């Protein structure tokens, strides 16, 4: 077992598909709220092989896409201060701010470096002790423990020139907002597998108890996704609403307690702005005052006035209200080469996935 190819077995996939077809009667909308699922669903052609009564909708699952423009402006402002090195995951480089991108700033001379891990950012700080090194803390619960871990490491190793500009987010409150908004009818959630590896299954309980919407925590290979769809259809047809774990080889109901404790130690939960959705109560993570010296918001910067790209309908795409081709910019003015909104920049953005795979 390598835990990859085995879950791409065609015969089993066909069996699951036939079972889905035989039990599925209602017309339903299932939403995935993880960008990695969005890409896996498109890459494997899963939307096309399902019966037409099962509609898959992409939600706000791409951290790059839900990051507000003002945050990009904030980090760009920091990059312009002398003596700063900005470190970031590669996906953020081309996201448009109000008037610039990190990529443009880098070509104009700012010291902006792509890293693969928070550990690499810390190493850059150790190697450049005369400079301030800021890491762009973008991500959901999968990534936030890795940020917490390096903050604790920086504290332990007394590294003074490392800090994080956090815009880390928590997924379940965004799912609540989508259900409350009622702009789109969601009959079931394909819940994020790796976020759930950290948080477990309990944070989704309110969705099944208060809103009676079934949830299945799903893995990322084609058989995982098909089985999760089968489990959701079965719940819907049986009239049940439960949180089930399809991705049992990885996700435990209680999650990863060590990772959760690190998040709890370093971060406090705050209200947070989501691009396209607005401010969501208790949906973001900020560095606690106790670790304030590692919070890049200790640096004063002047941030330009936020300008949204004209005509971009990223917000509605992120809420699952429209599909990308309904936006007049899609594929014409807005392409992966010349993206107008974040959903076309990130490889996990819904617009980029539609453009690449349709």
């Amino acid at each position: 077992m390598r835990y990859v190819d085995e879950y791409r077995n065609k015969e089993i996939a066909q069996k699951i598909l036939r079972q889905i077809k035989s039990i599925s009667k209602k017309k339903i909308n299932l939403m995935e709220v993880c960008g990695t699922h969005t890409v896996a669903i498109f890459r494997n052609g899963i939307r096309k092989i399902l019966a037409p009564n099962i509609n898959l909708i992409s939600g706000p699952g791409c951290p790059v896409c839900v990051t507000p423009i003002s945050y990009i402006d904030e980090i760009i402002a920091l990059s312009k201060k002398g003596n700063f090195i900005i470190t970031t995951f590669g996906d953020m480089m081309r996201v448009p701010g109000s008037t610039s991108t990190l990529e443009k700033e880098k070509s104009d001379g700012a010291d902006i470096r792509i890293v693969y891990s928070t550990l690499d950012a810390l190493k850059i700080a150790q190697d450049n002790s005369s400079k301030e090194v800021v890491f762009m803390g973008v991500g959901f619960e999968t990534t936030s423990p890795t940020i917490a871990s390096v903050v604790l490491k920086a504290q332990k190793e007394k590294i003074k020139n490392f800090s994080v500009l956090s815009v880390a987010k928590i997924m379940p409150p965004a799912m609540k907002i989508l259900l409350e908004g009622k702009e789109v009818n969601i009959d079931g959630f394909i819940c994020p597998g790796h976020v759930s590896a950290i948080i477990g299954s309990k944070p989704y309980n309110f969705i099944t108890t208060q809103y009676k919407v079934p949830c299945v925590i799903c893995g990322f290979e084609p058989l995982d996704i098909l089985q999760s769809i089968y489990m959701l259809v079965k719940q819907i047809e049986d009239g049940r609403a439960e949180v089930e774990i399809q991705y049992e080889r990885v996700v435990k109901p209680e999650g990863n307690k060590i990772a959760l404790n690190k998040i709890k130690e370093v971060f406090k939960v705050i209200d947070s702005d989501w691009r396209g959705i607005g401010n969501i109560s208790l949906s973001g993570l900020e560095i606690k005052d106790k670790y304030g010296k590692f919070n890049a918001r200790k640096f004063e910067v002047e941030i330009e006035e936020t300008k949204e790209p004209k005509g971009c309908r990223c917000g509605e795409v992120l809420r699952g209200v429209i599909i990308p081709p309904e936006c007049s910019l899609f594929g014409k003015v807005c392409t992966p080469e010349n993206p107008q909104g974040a959903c076309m920049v990130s490889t996990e953005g819904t617009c980029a996935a539609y453009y690449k795979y349709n």
Partner: protein
Amino acid sequence: MCLAIPGKITKIFGDNTAEIEIGGIIKEVNLDLIPKVKIDDYVLLHAGFAIEVIDQEKALEIFRAWEGKVD
């Protein structure tokens, strides 16, 4: 951004790091989030950190559930 890849632990070092093999490629991972791993465990690698151990028994359940199933 929540991509995580399975890899097999081949060496464990004293400083809470390990070496894992992913399809023939060797990478170093940090074990801060799952310190109790053994050689030959499969773990999920996300941004330089191992975030969870794969339960090798539960991994087979999907095949047990579907392989013998007659439609």
